[in-house]
């Protein structure tokens, strides 16, 4: 029962994404915009750019994820889909996990693939790229999971744009600190593995706990 439900939900989300592909491109375009504007603002100085490249890429990913966070459950809450999710014979937390995975796969994953090109745009030193990719691969799903809890907490509210950002940012800060920190450690010739392992630990913890917390929040919001 768990897999058919997950497959049905994934197929639905992909179809919806395709039907509204203009909206779906928004986070990616936003991230691209941040990166390009940064490159322009710093005047294309290769050395200045190289210093901040990894931090800019991290910020672009984080803000792009934040931008699409509010839509994670809102549409499904408004048309009653979440009610049917709650009544389905599969755990709500499972559906929340699948939905969050799809959110990550459609917003963060394309950017992750584009990171080497964006890095080139910012003159990111090539030896930093593997560490940056590893940190982003661990960090962005963690951001999505934390974001799911925040989105679930605010799903009962009519308008929650700024509230989502306010609630999410303190949760995002540690991820950003360790994620960007691992790359700058590597840049200084230090071992980045400690920060990466902490990110991985956080990801494992969030994989287990965040769907449960988000499901509980949805139940409260809809009652």
């Amino acid at each position: 029962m768990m897999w058919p439900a997950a497959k049905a939900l994934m197929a639905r989300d992909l179809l919806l994404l395709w039907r509204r592909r203009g909206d779906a491109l928004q986070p990616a375009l936003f991230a691209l915009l941040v990166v390009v504007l940064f490159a322009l603002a710093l005047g294309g100085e290769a050395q200045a750019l190289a210093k901040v490249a990894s931090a800019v890429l991290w910020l672009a990913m984080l803000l792009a994820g934040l931008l699409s966070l509010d839509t994670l459950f809102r549409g499904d809450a408004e048309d009653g889909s979440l009610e049917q999710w709650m009544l389905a014979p599969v755990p709500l937390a499972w559906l929340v996990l699948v939905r969050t995975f799809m959110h990550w796969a459609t917003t963060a994953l394309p950017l992750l693939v584009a990171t080497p090109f964006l890095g080139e745009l910012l003159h990111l030193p090539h030896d930093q790229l593997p560490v940056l990719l590893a940190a982003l691969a661990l960090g962005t799903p963690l951001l999505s999971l934390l974001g799911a809890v925040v989105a679930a907490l605010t799903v009962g509210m009519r308008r929650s744009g700024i509230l989502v950002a306010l609630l999410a940012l303190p949760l995002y800060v540690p991820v950003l600190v360790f994620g960007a920190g691992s790359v700058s450690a590597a840049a200084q010739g230090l071992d980045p593995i400690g920060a990466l392992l902490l990110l991985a630990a956080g990801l494992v913890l969030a994989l287990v706990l965040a769907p449960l917390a988000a499901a509980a929040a949805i139940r409260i919001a809809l009652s």
Partner: protein
Amino acid sequence: MSEHPSTAPPLLAARGLRFARNEAPVFGPLDFAVDAGEALLVQGDNGAGKTTLLRVLAGLLQADAGAIDIDGHPAKTSLRSRAIAYLGHLPALKADLSALENLNFLCGLHGRRRGQTPVSALGIVGLAGHEDTLARQLSAGQKKRLTLARLWLAPAPLWLLDEPYANLDLDGINLVNRMVQAHLRSGGAALLTTHGAYAAPPVRTRMLTLERPA
């Protein structure tokens, strides 16, 4: 109500069911039971708590007091999700998916009644030929029919129908009645809320009238 199937426990039974919102009582205490093959017509004015009662029975809201039994067992979440199909005010349809895609997703979520397919269900509710129509292009009545198709596909024996006649034409009202009749004949049961203006389905029916608490 003769020839009662005596020994089997009722499909749904509520004892002393009570619900209050912010200390203000909404309904109850209520006692009622529905056997397989029966319909329970929940009547009451606007604001009498019909929708709230159905949401409590479905498990979307927590009752303040009382017990709900399904088939003689206390209604736990796992039992509820297998036994209950809920048709609420919100259609649970995605506007950007076609009728068939909407049904396919909901079938994947809830499972499917044996021998039924989304295409055949669309035919039953009179939406044949609209398989590829986006839900946003359907009229309010057609959307209602689409949610009825979803209900028809659900494998659950107990139907909780909140205002199933809303938005439907005469033909649609007959359709609801025929569906309820067929469902009851196959051993299911149904709870219907209505504010009393429509003809009830021609089946063995119990009545429950809710009154707005003073």
